[in-house]
Structure formats: structure tokens, C-alpha cells
């Protein structure tokens, strides 16, 4: 039972990352009718905003590689210490420490990721705006295949620009000291102390995702802007006929979707050390999520995100797999036994196939969307 609860929590946590990316993808697809393969790259850029803020705010990579792209540090040679070649050590001190003292400086670097969330919003909206104006806008009337391809090209370019700046190695972003350990969830459910513990930051991430998702839904539900957008998602031509220039809303919509992907990336940076390839890694599972949810359906995307997250978590749980293998009386060298043990490799694809074959347009897709 503890194991079950733990994996449910795991699945919700992993699913919330999927759901956030898929939500942005669906926002863009639903309103603009554009399939954006560069969305994973926006997630990745968000994660690197966290790295950038870590550099700017202080000593995130005191141990890091020499490729810090942007640092605000005062360099003082300390003759009492030596570097690896026996030369006087160049001690780097964050200017925040120099200017505001140890406490403030340390606090800033400790909380650099939450600060980066705030900073990333304008940055991501700007990037989204630039992408829409500069590129996507010219693809509204092109076939979906062209949109997929040009944004795929863009994803490659954005990934490699980040690689040129930060190198290919993953770089860890720090999480605030206070949230870096586990929280005991079990005691709230009546278990003994230490039975069910879970990383505090991941719980923060889960609630953060939920509030972002709720905010997006509320925004679409209760604002005029959201109403127009929803109407546009349902029937673009009619909205156009009503004399509303839906195009005006598109740029902002794209910016919003980029910001959702961006903050998802920022908050994810302490969980998985981002590398330039992060976007591509998440692109495929997230597309599977979007399609399983049904193209163009926001609730579908969120639902499928959580569903696949939970599926993946349970697929990686060893106890039921070994149990199943034993109850089938298979030995270790048996191919079927190995397939059962290795089901976590393919779980989300297997589920995706099953769902798409039983529900032709995914969980909540509408007819005629992206079917030709």
C-alpha cells in the first residue's frame, strides 16, 4: 500500500511536468492551429533561464565547469591558496555578496530558481512573441506538415545555440536549501514516521503545476480574452465572421504558451539537470501525451499527462513485475520475463497505442482535427 501511494505521488509528479508542456502545446495548437515542435525547446530554454539566474545571482556552479556563460563575480587572487597548477587561486565572489553582504548574497543564490520563475516570464513571453511574429505567423495557412517541419528545424537551432553557449554537459540548478530534502507525507495519512517520504521540491513542483494549470483554465474561462480564444478554438471562422480579429490575440496566446513552457522548465531544472538536449528528450513523450489526450483538447492534454505519468511510474516499480514473472513460472533468461521486467522502457508507447486504437481521437479529441 505504501508503495502504491508512493508511486501514485510519483506519477502525479511526473505527470504534472508532462501536463504543463502538453498544455502549452495544446494552447498553441487549439488557438493557432499550429503544431509546434519547438515547444520542447521552449521548456529547455526555461530550464536554462534557471541556470542563467544561478550564474547571475551567485555561486550556483562553484564546482561547475569552466563554461559559465554569464557570471557576476568579483575575481580576487588569493596567494594563500593555489589552483590546480600551483598558481595563486583566483577566488570568485558574487557581486551580490560584495555589495549586500554574505546573508543577502547567499539568500539570492539559494533562491535563484524561484527568482528565475519571475524573471523567466517576461523573457519567455518575449521569445514567444518573437517566434510568432518572426516565423509562426507565416505558417498559419501552410499545411500542418510544414509547421511541424519548420518548428522542428527551429528546435534544432535553439538547442544548438544553447549548446554553443553552455556546452553539452547537463548542469544542475540548485534548489533552496529548505526544500532540498524529503518531506514525510506518510504521517498525514496515518503511517509511521519515515514510511512515505517524498522530495519536498517535487511536491512544490506538483502544486506549482496545478496552480499554473488552474490559472490557465481560469483565464480561459473567466476573461473576455479567454472567451474569444475558446470560441476561436471551437470555431475559428465564426469568430472571424463576428468581426473579431482573432489574429490580434494570437501573438499574446503564443507568448502565454511559451511562458507556461518556460516556467515549467525553470522549476524542473533542479529536478533534472538540463542539457541542450532536454527539449528533444521531452518532445516525443509530450507529443504522445498531446495526441493521447486528443489534439486540441486542453482537459485531454492534462488528463493524458497525469495518466501517462502514473503509467510510467507503475511500470518502473519492480515488485509487481517480479511477482508476475514468478507467478507465471518464468525464469530469468525467458524473453517474456525480460519483456515484463523491461516494460518501463516502452510503457507509455504501449499505452498510447492501446488508447489510440480503442479511442480513435485520443481521450478527448474532436473529430476532423489533424486527421488528414
Amino acid at each position, binding site marked *: 500500500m505504501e508503495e502504491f501511494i508512493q508511486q501514485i505521488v510519483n506519477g502525479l509528479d511526473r505527470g504534472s511536468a508532462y501536463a504543463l508542456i502538453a498544455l502549452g502545446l495544446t494552447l498553441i495548437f487549439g488557438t493557432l492551429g499550429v503544431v509546434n515542435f519547438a515547444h520542447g525547446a521552449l521548456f529547455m530554454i526555461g530550464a536554462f533561464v534557471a541556470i542563467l539566474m544561478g550564474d547571475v545571482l551567485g555561486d550556483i556552479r562553484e564546482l561547475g565547469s569552466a563554461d559559465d556563460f554569464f557570471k557576476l563575480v568579483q575575481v580576487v587572487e588569493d596567494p594563500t591558496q593555489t589552483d*590546480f597548477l600551483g598558481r595563486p587561486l583566483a577566488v570568485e565572489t558574487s557581486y551580490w555578496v560584495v555589495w549586500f553582504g554574505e546573508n543577502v548574497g547567499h539568500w539570492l543564490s539559494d533562491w535563484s530558481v524561484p527568482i528565475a520563475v519571475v524573471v523567466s516570464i517576461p523573457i519567455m513571453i518575449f521569445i514567444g512573441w518573437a517566434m510568432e511574429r518572426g516565423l509562426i505567423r507565416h505558417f498559419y495557412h501552410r499545411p500542418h506538415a510544414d509547421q511541424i517541419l519548420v518548428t522542428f528545424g527551429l528546435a534544432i537551432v535553439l538547442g544548438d545555440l544553447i549548446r554553443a553557449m553552455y556546452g553539452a554537459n547537463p548542469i544542475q540548478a540548485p534548489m533552496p536549501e529548505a526544500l532540498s530534502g524529503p518531506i514525510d507525507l506518510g504521517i498525514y495519512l496515518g503511517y509511521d514516521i519515515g514510511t512515505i517520504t517524498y522530495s519536498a521540491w517535487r511536491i512544490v513542483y506538483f502544486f506549482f503545476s496545478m496552480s499554473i494549470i488552474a490559472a490557465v483554465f481560469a483565464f480561459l474561462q473567466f476573461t473576455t480574452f479567454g472567451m474569444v480564444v475558446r470560441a476561436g478554438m471551437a470555431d475559428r471562422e465564426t469568430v472571424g465572421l463576428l468581426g473579431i480579429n482573432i489574429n490580434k490575440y494570437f501573438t499574446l496566446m503564443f507568448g502565454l504558451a511559451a511562458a507556461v513552457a518556460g516556467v515549467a522548465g525553470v522549476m524542473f531544472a533542479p529536478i533534472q539537470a538540463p542539457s541542450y538536449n532536454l527539449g528533444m528528450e521531452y518532445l516525443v513523450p509530450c507529443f504522445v501525451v498531446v495526441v493521447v489526450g486528443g489534439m486540441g483538447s486542453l482537459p485531454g492534454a492534462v488528463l493524458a499527462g497525469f495518466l501517462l505519468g502514473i503509467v510510467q511510474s507503475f511500470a518502473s516499480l519492480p515488485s509487481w513485475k517480479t511477482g508476475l514473472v514468478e507467478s507465471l513460472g518464468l525464469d530469468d533468461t525467458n524473453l517474456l520475463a525480460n519483456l515484463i521486467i523491461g516494460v518501463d522502457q516502452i510503457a507509455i508507447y504501449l499505452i498510447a497505442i492501446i488508447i489510440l486504437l480503442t479511442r480513435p481521437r485520443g481521450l478527448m479529441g474532436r473529430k476532423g482535427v489533424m486527421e488528414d
Partner: protein
Amino acid sequence: MSTSNFTRRGVLKTGAVAGAGLAVPTYLSAASHSGFTNAPTGSTVKIGFNVPQTGPYAEEGLDELRAQELAVEHINGMGDGGMLNTFSEKNLDGTGILGKKVEFVTGDTQTKSDVARASAQQMIEREGVIMVNGGSSSGVAVAVQALCQEAGVMFMAGLTHSNDTTGKDRKANGFRHFFNSYMSGAALAPVLEGAYGNGRRAYHLTADYNWGYTTQEAVQTSTEAMGWETVETVLTPVGAGDFNSYITPVLNSGADVLVLNHYGGDMVNSLSQAIQAGIRDRMVDGTQMEIIVPLYSELMAAGAGSNIEGVFGSMNWNWQLQDAGTAAFTKSFGEKYGRPPSNAAHTCYVQTLLYADAVTRAGTFNPCGVVEALEDFEFDGMGNGATTYRGADHQCFKDVLVVKGKENPANQYDTLEIVEVTPRAQVEYAPDHPSFGGADASLGTCNPGA
């Protein structure tokens, strides 16, 4: 923009030299004269550095490339000579190899076996290289080694840690300086026993591919031999990114040691996530839960930041060693590139020098001659103490480092501290050891090509 290592004049000169070299017919016609693939006939000889320049191991590959360029410089008599000054053999005099200046070409393996082979093939066919060096994964090493065997050129493996490279997939034309999974297990066990006692219960998370399997097997065997119990072994998909769903079951499994048979980005992520999940804060029946990372990479360790503090692992070499060879190499590398070399860089550097020296001693570039010169070759002064290239499987035998993440690093490169230098005798095994292909494993015969 003076950061570039090339001055225009220098390049024009090598360009001209290159031109002269290229005018020589490609290897087939040459082969008909001298009886082996890509026999050099002009005043230069070309070697190929096949390393990952894109993909997840790009940084490691680029570090290997730096070391290889440095090795070529030293062989050609430029720079300060590095380890040539401390190497126990003194055959290389800075005039290249057998009087021929060394040139090199580079290729990108992308850490994909297919691409690596295609790249090696391009070097052999088009550039006429006589030896291929480098790489950052066992899959690539095994694949390229087999190709070099067929083509009749030498292969000096870079970073490859799986038993198979010099085990069941060993080849006569291939040599490995780097240590392997078995040695990691053998070297780690006594240190772990000292630090954590002999009643521990281990839980393995293992990357689901060949290297993971051999590493898990090695660590499992050696820890069980000293009395540890293996609670569970779980395979994880390569590049999973998020390992949390594998880590949380560890907490209540009754295990008190978590072994992460992961490398590279997987290691950074699984280690950080294990610490976030509270593995190292946990007490199991009164003992503190611990994490072990059998194979460390200092480049990746930097990515994991302070999470590696106090975590044990093993390495082939580390720049913080105190011997003269290490000092000379670190100085030479550090002055040129502004950073200490990684152990991947070290192994590629050493392999290049060893090759050059073997050719000199053999008096020929013919791979069969070079193989003979390297087999059971004993040397010292390359940073690992007295070392032997065993003839039976072309594996180097030398001391193995057990290291630990440093608690209070003094500078950004000071991430690991050396806990113990496990003597070579402790990590030795028979060439027909069952983990290395048993009695069936065979080098075959050396292939000079054409």
C-alpha cells in the same frame, strides 16, 4: 581573438605538409607495396581521433580531443614534452614517429556505434589513417575495434569501461588502457568494507545496456564476496531523465546502500534525485544509508555539484595524483587549455604516446609489429605507476583509484578526493575469467590489412 591555437603561418605550413601527404596514393596502392593498410610513404603519418563531438558525451569527447592534440604536439617536438619526460621509455625524441611528422584528423562518433564506425571508416578510407584512437562509450569502442580489426589498422580505445571491450569482444588490433568494470568492483570492495562494514544490504539501479550489466555484475560479485547482501537489482532505461520512480521504492526496501550503475547524464540525474529523495538522510536499522557510484567522471561530477559529497566511486586516473608523470601532464594540459585534464583525456593522451612508442620500438607501422611491441609491454611514468599491457587480452593492468566526492572543495576543479590507490595485484584476473568471455574469448590474429 588570440584564443585560437592556430597561427595563420603555422597552419599554412601544415597545410602544405598535408598537401604533400595527400598526394600519396590512397592506401590500396600503397598497400601493395608495403603489405599493410595505409602504410605511410611520405614524410608524414596520419592518425585518427574518433571522439563524440555532439550528443550527450560531447564535453568528454572534446576533452579527449584536447589531450590528443597535445600528445601530437609532444610527439612532434612542440610544447614542453609533457609525459614524454617521465615515460620510462625514451625512444620518442620529438621528431615524430620513425622520423615522420604526425598529423591527425578528427571524427564525430555522436556516441552512436553506427556513426562511429562510419566515421572511422571515413578516416581509414579517405584520410588514410594508420591508427584510430578515442571514444567515450563501450558500445562505440567494441564497434570501432571490430572495424579496425577488419580494415587492418590499430585501435587504441579511449574511455570504455565495460568488461566486453577486452573480454568477449577483444580483438588483436585493439588495445585498452582504461580500466574496467571488474577492476572497479575489485578496487571498491575493500574500501567499502572499511568504510561501511561487511553487513550491508545493497540495492542496485543499473543502466539497461551492456556496460550497466557488466558493472552491476562486478560490484555485486565483489561486495557479496565480502558479506554484503544484494536486496534488489533494477534496470533503468538509458536517458530516463527522471529516476524518482525507481528511487522511491529503495527507501522502504530494507536496503542500506544504493549502488547507481549509471554514467554521464544519467549519473548526474539519478544521484541528485536520490539525494533529493532523502536517501542519504535515511537511517535503516540504525545505519546511515549510503550511495555508491562505481564509475566516476569528473566532468559529469561537476554537473552534480555538491550532491557527490562523500559518495564513493572509482577512476582510472585523477589529476590530483602526486607522481611526476601526472604533474607533468597536468601542467602541460593546464597551461594550454586552462583547466585540468579529465581521466578520459588522460587515457587518450597516454594511448597516443604508447602507440607512438610501440611503433618506434617495432621499427614499423605495420599493425602486427606494433601489436607485438605492445603485448606484455611494461612501462611506468604515465601517471598510473608500473603498468603492463597484458598480451592475452590487450588490457592494461595498473593501480585503480578509489575516490570520494570532496566535502569542502577548494576550487572548482577540486571535486573529488583520492581515498585509496588500490594496488594492481588486487584487481588482476585471469584472461579467461568467465566475466570476460571465458575460455571462448579470443583475440584472433593481428590483421595488417590489404
